[in-house]
């Protein structure tokens, strides 16, 4: 079970720390990570595996939102399947 986390906003210190802390606390593993500047926005994409997650999808989403709010960035959590479905034949 994999999901994509998208973090968009202004670059600053501690982004990876805060996001990965939330993931660690819920036992979610980071499998891949990439950062880029898109349309003048700092964008970080994370592929995570949540098979061993110790909470519900909703709770993880809420925890990431809290981390995002503290950083002043928008954080999205979406199952990987949606991107696969739309962009792979």
């Amino acid at each position, binding site marked *: 079970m994999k999901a*994509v986390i*998208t973090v968009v906003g202004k670059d600053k210190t501690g982004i990876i720390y805060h996001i990965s802390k939330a993931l660690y606390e819920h036992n979610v593993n980071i499998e*891949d*990570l*990439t950062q*880029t500047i*898109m349309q003048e926005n700092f*964008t970080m*994409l994370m*592929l995570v595996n949540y098979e061993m997650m110790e909470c519900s*999808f*909703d709770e993880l*989403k809420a925890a990431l939102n809290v981390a995002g709010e503290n950083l002043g960035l928008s954080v*999205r*959590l*979406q*199952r*990987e*399947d*949606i*991107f*696969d*479905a*739309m*962009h792979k034949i």
Partner: protein
Amino acid sequence: MALIAKDIIETIQMIEKDNLDIRTTTMGISLFDCISHNPIITAEKIYDKVTKKAARLVKTAEEIGKEFGIPIINKRISVTPVAMLGSGADRDDYVEIAFALDRAAEETGVDFIGGYSALVQKGFTATDLEFLASIPQALAQTQKVCSSVNVGSSKAGINMDAVKWMGSIIKETAYLTKEKDSIGCAKFVVFANAVEDNPFMAGAFHGPGEPEAVINVGVSGPGVVKSALEKVEGMAMDVVAETIKRTAFKITRAGMLVGKEMSQRVGVPFGIMDLSLAPTPKVGDSVAEILEIMGLEKCGTHGTTAALALLNDAVKKGGIMASSHVGGLSGAFIPVSEDAGMIDAVISGALTFDKLEAMTSVCSVGIDMVAVSGDTSESTLSAIIADEAAIGVINNKTTAVRIIPAYGKKVGDIVNFGGLLGSAPVMAISEYSSEDFIARGGRIPAPVHSFKN
């Protein structure tokens, strides 16, 4: 990364900026096993069955929407055409069934429940007559029940007695709901070549050839198509068609994913994907704006029919490759009140009723959510329906009429329904009579090219 960053960002932009959403997930439920000798018992059984089958529909759709990060706007139920269920029922009994459906819709939390319907393309049964007489009351006294009547098909021709009756049903419904801008008429649609698996309202019903229960999904995304076309400005029509196809493919795949997941979680087989571009009153979620981005100053000017034909066809071609089961209405919807660009085109005088009728010959439905003057006669409404039915029957396509003769309103007034139903400027129609034409009744025979066996 296995996924390409550009693709991830594109999907997120489609959802957040261009209003990509799953417009509806509709559970079709067969009610044939609810028929009993007593219509009141039938109504009770209907309530029990619908509330049991669809108990988890809304909650599951919301969960899936959150997990994929794509909104599922409407959750709906369609049922077996109710006219078929009322063994021995009179019109009051049928209204009781409408109440049961309304209560079931309330209990399950869905937006609308469709299937207060009859299929009378070739003629009426005794119970059909009672059922049709109950429609205005049923629409006036319920909140969430949607009704439809099929009056013609390419195989059967057009039942002009039914067409005649529809004019009076629409007028009576407009009167009974006059306090709310005749909103009852927005929940009633008259079809030719109605489809049995349409997930969109007001015309959804669960056809008699359908299984026990199914999940049908309708996708949307006019804003996404518009956004994609903005990037190919000035290029040839081939490029326009190809761009729409590619976009429709992506939208449909998102819908398929949601449909399969819904079906698995609620334990009901997946039925079909309806590949429709359904607009909403929100700016940037408009089919008219797509036509305008193709190079038309305003929707409704010369070239609009050609642009819509291209759009409708390309949406189907892209979507068909993305889904193994395509059905419903599939194409572009052109409801006036639910599309900001269409409303604007009517107000500015660019889009007339007659042009709209021409457009319906190449889109997926018909005269949809059009408000006309409250003093429009029954026979004129029937004649509008006859014209639309003829377009459908001759061209082997579905056509529909959802028209609102808004009580007390005149051409130029605005009728306000609120929510997804939007608001509509009252449109001008011909002032000449069709009275004697409609008074003839009878049946218009099926066209010669329908004899294919």
